[in-house]
């Protein structure tokens, strides 16, 4: 038989003015199960709390109802007080007499009656409350960062600097990502390599940071604080310990004509290569698809010339399994490629290139060593046309969204060109100029006013070649849609930013949700921008949406802070408001029939399968099982369950039902 104590608070005049607290306290005494009911001026005050604590001991109460303000305000306060008196804190509930009654109704019997009702409801609930205990989940203090671009590097460094272990996994042979390909960066025009490489080196040197380049996530199991990640380390065909990175092999490789990824196909590399001079780690990798030895069984020149005998033709991929506590997704983006632009002849005409290619052309470390030479014949382009929004904000190209960075880098490209070729002519076709960011608009103005880049507001309809030059046909919408034709030597398309290839598969591996364009989805568009729906997995950079460098770095540090906060305790304590599947003795084992229709209702993939097996190992029943580490306690599964096998602690069917039945 429950022994409930009810404590009605006047909250000074706040409640007392409109609700007859004494009367409420009095009539509450007649509610079955209530053994003690008093009213007091300020329950949340020390004397008020003492009142409750003493009553618990004196009347050895089995439950407490504090009729005062909103539980969203003082529930923690009173639960703590109750706990101090030795009663399980979850046996204390609050009736909201202030926000939901005294403040919103005038002084009247009806108001007092309502107050009494609200208390009765809570009394009935408390009768069905169970002692609950916070859920403790151990936390493995090692983070996994997927993607070695600036986002991944920044996140990894920040976490490492908090004194936690970090594993940084990058699928290509070197970290650095797209930022390492850029020539200069807006809005300051400082050299990308110069600001990035120190970070790359720091990442390589950091004692808490383990680099895994040329590696990919194979599989992920577990949940927040307790992930198990399997990483595939692709074979470099190289003993990295022996390799000194002298680069002799790369110079001697007979293969010389392979389009080089780092230079976006504008340069050439060998079959054994280091992606770029500042690569980290500075160790070559053999591109099996193009290596003469793997194709014909002969060659092995690299092996012969290697002074340390580091080449390993027989080396195989290696699988490593790691215990991980938290994950930062920083897999970045890609730009839309040729096949999408027949009208621009991109892919057909060598002198129609994309933004990344232009970065390489402009870069001092690029194939032309920074000299403005167009791909087709190496001539210096006298006229260059830049086409913004190539594919972006264009439903017919499947990209309705704005790629965000193009307005800025197009202005930058035009500037870089003008700085290298003062007499040259630069045109920019654009829809709108979106330059909202610190010093961004000033930057664009500079391109227009100081470097006299001609901006034409309009779309380009077609580009074709005519006697060795590219004819760009467009319209100038500010001149009443006048058709414009420009004969150019080089055309640069600011092609749309898209989700990295394989994002969908990765998202499914990690149970992270993603948007229609395969960018990873944040947990809340405003308030949880770096979290995902899966606890313990965070987002950084352009894998979530198009981002520029400053934003990416900021978000990466944000994600790192979330990881550090998670790692700040050995155990993760969670409110016990979680769903549980009931268990019964054999042969039923549970009301659950294992239809798993609740599984898709759970926003957190918290519902797992549990197989019940007999002594002989035969499968007796398959039940739903809630992973308390993942469950956030929304209860959607509960409303979905036909057999009422699944219920939620703190808001159980019995509790809600009891509340309802008092009305």
């Amino acid at each position, binding site marked *: 038989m429950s022994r409930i104590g009810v404590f009605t608070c006047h909250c000074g005049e706040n409640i007392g003015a409109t609700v007859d607290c004494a009367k409420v306290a009095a009539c509450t005494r007649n509610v079955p199960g209530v053994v003690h009911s008093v009213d007091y001026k300020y329950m949340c005050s020390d004397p008020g709390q003492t009142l409750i604590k003493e009553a618990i001991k004196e009347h050895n109460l089995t439950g407490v109802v504090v009729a005062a303000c909103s539980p969203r305000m003082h529930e923690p306060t009173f639960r703590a007080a109750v706990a101090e008196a030795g009663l399980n804190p979850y046996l204390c509930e609050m009736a909201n007499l202030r926000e939901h009654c005294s403040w919103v109704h005038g002084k009247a019997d009806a108001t007092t009656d309502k107050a009494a009702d609200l208390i009765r409801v809570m009394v009935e609930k408390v009768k069905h409350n169970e002692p609950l205990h916070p859920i403790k989940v151990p936390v493995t203090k090692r983070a996994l960062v997927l993607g070695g671009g600036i986002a991944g590097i920044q996140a990894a460094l920040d976490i490492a600097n908090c004194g936690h272990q970090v594993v940084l996994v990058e699928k290509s042979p070197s970290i650095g990502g797209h930022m390492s390909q850029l020539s200069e960066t807006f809005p300051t025009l400082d050299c990308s390599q110069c600001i990035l490489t120190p970070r790359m080196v720091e990442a390589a040197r950091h004692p808490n940071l383990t680099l895994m380049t040329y590696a990919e996530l194979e599989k992920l199991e577990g949940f927040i604080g307790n992930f198990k990640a399997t990483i595939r380390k692709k074979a470099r065909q190289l003993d990295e310990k022996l390799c000194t990175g002298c680069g002799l092999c790369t110079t001697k490789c007979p293969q010389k004509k392979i389009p080089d990824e780092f230079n976006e196909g504008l340069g050439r590399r060998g079959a054994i290569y280091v992606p770029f001079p500042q690569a980290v780690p500075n160790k070559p990798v053999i591109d099996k698809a193009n290596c003469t030895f793997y194709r014909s069984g002969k060659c092995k020149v690299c092996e012969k010339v290697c002074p340390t005998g580091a080449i390993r033709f027989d080396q195989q991929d290696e699988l490593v399994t790691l215990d991980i506590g938290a994950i930062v997704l920083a897999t970045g983006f890609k730009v839309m490629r040729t096949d999408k*632009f*027949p*009208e621009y002849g991109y892919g057909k005409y060598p002198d129609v290139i994309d933004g990344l290619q232009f970065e390489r052309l402009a870069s001092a470390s690029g194939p032309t060593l920074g000299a403005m030479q167009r791909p087709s014949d190496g001539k210096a382009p006298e006229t260059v046309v830049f086409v913004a929004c190539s594919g972006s904000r264009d439903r017919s190209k499947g990209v309705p969204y704005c790629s965000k960075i193009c307005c800025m880098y197009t202005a930058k490209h035009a500037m870089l060109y003008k700085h290298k070729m003062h007499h040259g002519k630069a045109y920019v076709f654009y829809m709108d100029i979106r330059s909202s960011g610190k010093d961004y608009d000033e930057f664009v103005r500079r391109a227009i006013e100081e470097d006299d880049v001609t901006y034409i507001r309009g779309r380009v309809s*077609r580009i*074709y*070649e*005519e006697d060795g030059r590219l*004819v760009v046909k467009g319209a100038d919408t500010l001149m009443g849609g006048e058709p414009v034709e420009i004969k150019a030597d080089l055309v640069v398309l600011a092609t749309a930013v898209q989700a990295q290839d394989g994002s969908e598969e990765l998202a499914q591996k990690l149970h992270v949700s993603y948007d229609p364009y395969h960018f990873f989805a944040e947990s809340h568009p405003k308030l949880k921008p770096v979290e995902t729906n899966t606890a313990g997995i965070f987002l950084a950079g352009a894998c979530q949406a198009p981002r520029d460098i400053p934003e990416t770095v900021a978000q990466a540090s944000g994600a790192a802070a979330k990881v550090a906060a998670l790692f700040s305790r050995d155990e993760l304590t969670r409110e016990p408001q979680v769903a549980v599947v009931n268990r019964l003795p054999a042969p039923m084992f549970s009301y659950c029939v294992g239809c798993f229709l609740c599984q898709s209702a759970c926003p957190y993939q918290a519902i797992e399968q549990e197989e019940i097996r007999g002594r002989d190992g035969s499968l007796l029943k398959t039940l739903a099982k809630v992973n308390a580490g993942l469950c956030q306690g929304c209860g959607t599964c509960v409303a979905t369950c036909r057999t009422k096998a699944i219920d939620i602690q703190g808001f159980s069917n019995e509790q809600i039902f009891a509340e309802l039945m008092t009305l």
Partner: protein
Amino acid sequence: MRIGYYPGCSLLGSSREFDESVRALAGALGLELVQVPDWNCCGASSAHVLDHKLSLALPARILAQAEAAGLEEILAPCAACYNRLASARDALDKDPVLAREMEKVIGRPATHKVRVVNILEVLDRFKDTLPGLLKVPFAHKVACYYGCLLVRPAKVLHFDRAEDPQSMDRLAAAAGAAPLDWNYKTECCGAAFSVTRTDLVARLSGKIVADAVRAGAEAILVACPMCQSNLDMRRTESNAYLGADHQIPVLFITQALGLALGIDANRLGLQRHMVPATFAPAAV
């Protein structure tokens, strides 16, 4: 093979040679053309700018007629007819309410099941048999000109690549011709302004002719009556605009294929052209 046939007005008038060459070619390929009974105007090229409902009702009736005649598919050689019929079918298909409304207007049940195909789609089905039938390969450098109506709007027509179509080039190649890579494949020829704004047509068509010549074409191939008449009938004006004297003939793809199959030039209506279209027969 049996297929519904919707000639439309152009093929009875200004572009009779298109009708003639389609029929001649169909005969040679063993394709039976069943004319849509009691067909009416498709509404091009004015209805859709004047009255949306009307521009749907007219094709809706044609489709209903075809359906009543038990046809599953109709060939509309005229690109404008093709475009109007296909667009209407798409609209009715997407909006059942509108479909019911149209049924009231035309007083016929319309399930708009009938598929609408253009001449290139149909001929493409013969790409394997064609080479075998070749008598006089059409061994000439050609610029295949698609215009706008055959490939746009892509989301309705789902035919070829809107920005860089290839279907006619493939057919031309099959007929022994050498299709050229040129720049004006899908530029506007001035279309229906042929009569009202000849100056404009002269300019637009002129550029197309000029680029075809620049590319080294001996003939321009088309699959649209309006393209044909603008490039052919308006040659005097376009030459005047260009200050040039381009004599490059403009053939319907069906005429080129017909010649390749050894069909007599007059049966293909080549004599009807403004710019003479005579070719020295190449050896087999």
